[in-house]
């Protein structure tokens, strides 16, 4: 996991009743990429982060934040 980076992608996706595959399709990446982002294994590019925010209909800061800064 990237040190200090916290993400709420799994929770936000679940709130919208989206599967990993559906979200992956919406932003044009593989389901594995969504899975690794959710698990903190992979830190996405700014472009993908913005696409995720657009697909979930929320600001990117709602998905990603620095730990300790809320």
């Amino acid at each position, binding site marked *: 996991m990237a040190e200090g980076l916290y993400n709420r992608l799994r929770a936000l996706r679940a709130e919208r009743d989206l599967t990993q595959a559906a979200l992956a399709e919406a932003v044009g*990446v*593989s389901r594995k990429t969504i899975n690794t982002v959710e698990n903190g294994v992979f830190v996405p590019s700014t472009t993908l982060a913005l696409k995720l925010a657009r697909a979930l209909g929320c600001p990117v800061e709602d998905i990603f934040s620095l730990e300790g800064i809320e």
Partner: protein
Amino acid sequence: MMQANLQARAERAARARAALLATGAVIVAVTAFLRTTDTSATAEGVGWILLMAAWSIVLATGGGLALSGQMRALLNDELSIANRGRAITWGFFASLAAATVVLLAAPHVAIDLAGGVRIVTAAGLAVAMLRYALLEWR
């Protein structure tokens, strides 16, 4: 449903690619040690260069050149590209390690230039391919 199918097919293709690369890594490593004479200017030497070039292209592009653009985009998304970068870094250091071993072994074992080059390049390519396969498989 069609989108889910595309994702499922992309996952299967990624696994197949990982298996192919792992197999290719073994082939490259074994082939490097099958040589018995100086083959730098022979058909075997040319074959070696072609083998290295072919696997290098697969490693650099992610392969799947015959697949649709949409499928290729999923197979080579940013996670896959990042994994390739990490794998190639491993390959680079494996080449350096192999070169060091060849250098240290040279006074004690008869190694000609072509043989040394084969060992160094095979180590770098095989390790990069294997590392990429492992990253893509998990």
